């Protein structure tokens, strides 16, 4: 009986904390709206082919470069393919690639950063020098080089973006970890007879998680940009796959005669990046109580 009541109270306290975070997040209107936009983007990424009004691969040269109309809300591209359908189907590539690369990059980066910051010493030096070298390259250049060597395709894109962004997580995590390791409660945990591995994952990681989550959200935005840039440069998912970046790339020759070919995919990229960044802002306010007092919003 006692146990049941105790467990119920744990659940209650957890729910309360979650509700607090959610309320703070909701009070940031821009972030709240962005959450719906991202929800919508994920929806079209999942169900794009189902809700697309036309087949995104069907070309009809007689209908090429048609401006937006009722039958083609976003117009058609240089081969007469419906742009709306292509954006809907392309969402899964652009967003999926970014999501996967951020997840992989953050995972590797956080592990290395945690290890590096907690252990210090020789391993720290080795990891940090490697990260130094990787950070010295511009991200996009590194990604281009990686795609060039791995070959085109969704998987190599994900790997390329993950590899070129993980050093940032290493740095970020290490910085936070260094601060946390100096905290007295880590010494107290050691005094309880805890192993290093346990302290790393149970005491250090949870305390450093907030900035990492916030940073990952920001990085969703830049990963979308990198993925689209690679597509624009012709290094992304090979045509005719309708990835947003490559849609801009192939339509750029008609920028002045038929701007809608470039403008609509560009608009979607912008909205996606902006939404993720605004969510990042909201999360920062909600998850980091220290920041909250400094940057309280109306």
């Amino acid at each position: 009986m006692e146990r049941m009541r105790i467990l119920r109270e744990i659940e209650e306290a957890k729910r309360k904390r979650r509700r607090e975070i959610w309320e703070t997040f909701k009070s940031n209107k821009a972030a709240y709206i962005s959450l719906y936009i991202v929800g919508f983007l994920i929806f079209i990424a999942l169900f794009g082919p189902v809700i697309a009004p036309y087949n995104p691969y069907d070309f009809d040269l007689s209908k090429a470069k048609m401006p937006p109309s009722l039958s083609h809300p976003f117009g058609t591209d240089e081969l007469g393919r419906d742009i709306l359908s292509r954006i809907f189907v392309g969402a899964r590539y652009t967003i999926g690639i970014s999501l996967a690369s951020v997840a992989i990059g953050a995972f590797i980066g956080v592990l290395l950063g945690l290890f590096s910051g907690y252990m210090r010493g020789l391993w720290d030096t080795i990891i940090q020098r490697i990260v130094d070298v990787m950070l010295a390259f511009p991200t996009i250049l590194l990604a281009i080089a990686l795609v060039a060597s791995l070959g085109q395709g969704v998987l190599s894109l994900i790997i390329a973006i993950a590899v070129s962004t993980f050093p940032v997580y290493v740095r970020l995590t290490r910085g936070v970890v260094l601060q946390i390791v100096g905290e007295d409660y880590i010494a107290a945990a050691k005094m309880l007879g805890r192993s290093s591995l346990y302290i790393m994952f149970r005491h250090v990681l949870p305390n450093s998680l907030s900035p990492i989550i916030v940073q990952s959200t920001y990085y969703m935005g830049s990963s979308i940009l990198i993925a689209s840039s690679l597509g624009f440069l012709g290094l992304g998912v090979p045509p005719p796959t309708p990835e947003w970046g490559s849609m801009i790339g192939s339509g750029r020759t008609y920028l002045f005669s038929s701007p809608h070919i470039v403008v609509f995919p560009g608009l979607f990229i912008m909205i996606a990046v902006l939404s993720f960044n605004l969510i990042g802002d909201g999360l920062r306010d909600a998850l980091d109580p220290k920041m909250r007092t400094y940057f309280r919003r109306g």
Partner: protein
Amino acid sequence: MEKILEVQDLRVHYDLPQGTVKAVDGVSFEVYDGEIFGIAGESGSGKSTLALAIPRLLRPPAKIVSGKILFMGRDLLTLDDKDLRKIRGREISMIFQDPNTYLNPVYFTGYQVAEVYEAHRGGAFKKYLGEVVKLFKIVKIADPERRVFTYPHQMSGGMKQRVLISMAIAERPRLIIADEPTSALDVTIQAEIMDLLNEIKKEIRSSIIFITHDLSLLLEIADRIMIMYAGKVVEIGRADEIAKDPMHPYTKALLATLRYERKKRLYTIPGSLPSLIKPPSGCRFHPRCLFAKDVCREKEPQILNINGRWVSCILYGDEYEPGSQS
């Protein structure tokens, strides 16, 4: 009485860019079963460094240079990580100085106490919540069932110190190191915590090393007292004997500062603690000592055993045979 802990000629240095700070410089003492062993000294006398050195919790730039720490006959300085972990928390535990920073802010306090059991007995920590409630009752936390599920920031300083104490006594260790457990608290709460420690002491029968800069507090609660000055042991003796008949000039001066008479200024020891990078030659206390002679500047005094008390001062060197530094 059984010896629980024996520290032999321990030296701890901090390697700083400005030079080497000899924070603990050749300290030896023994702690017996069931006693409260008090360590007193000014800020910077090396007492906290000593406290962290015993369970090997020191972090760089601090380094144990030499010495032995024999706990129940085993030298803690030669143990590997795994064996050390078995001792920490179960056989030696610690009550820290500032209860506000020694609890992890992201977990319920009860979980953190349950962790002591989890660390040494295995299994999920939720299994031990009943034990935690019992512990909270022992340390007199009101409404213990509810307090298990509060975060550290929802508690007062005194309450957090009670939580830390409950962690320290959870496994009924042989030795508890209390490093200024009341310094960060209000005077009224201090008194409550001291009462609590006294009570718990009777129940769990651990030896306690009680470290503080408050000598008057030690005289009340400790069985034996060690006075430290600038990283060195100045005097060790029974508390009542030290109170009645302090031998070392520094101990005498310390006790003089405690004496309060109406319409008289409180006594203060002139000068301040010397730099530990370049300590004074000879006896470290000589620049501030009222009894200092010329020899004090040149010769470092031996620590002498005088009728069961240890004193390191040349004042006693001539009358008595120098004792061995065991």
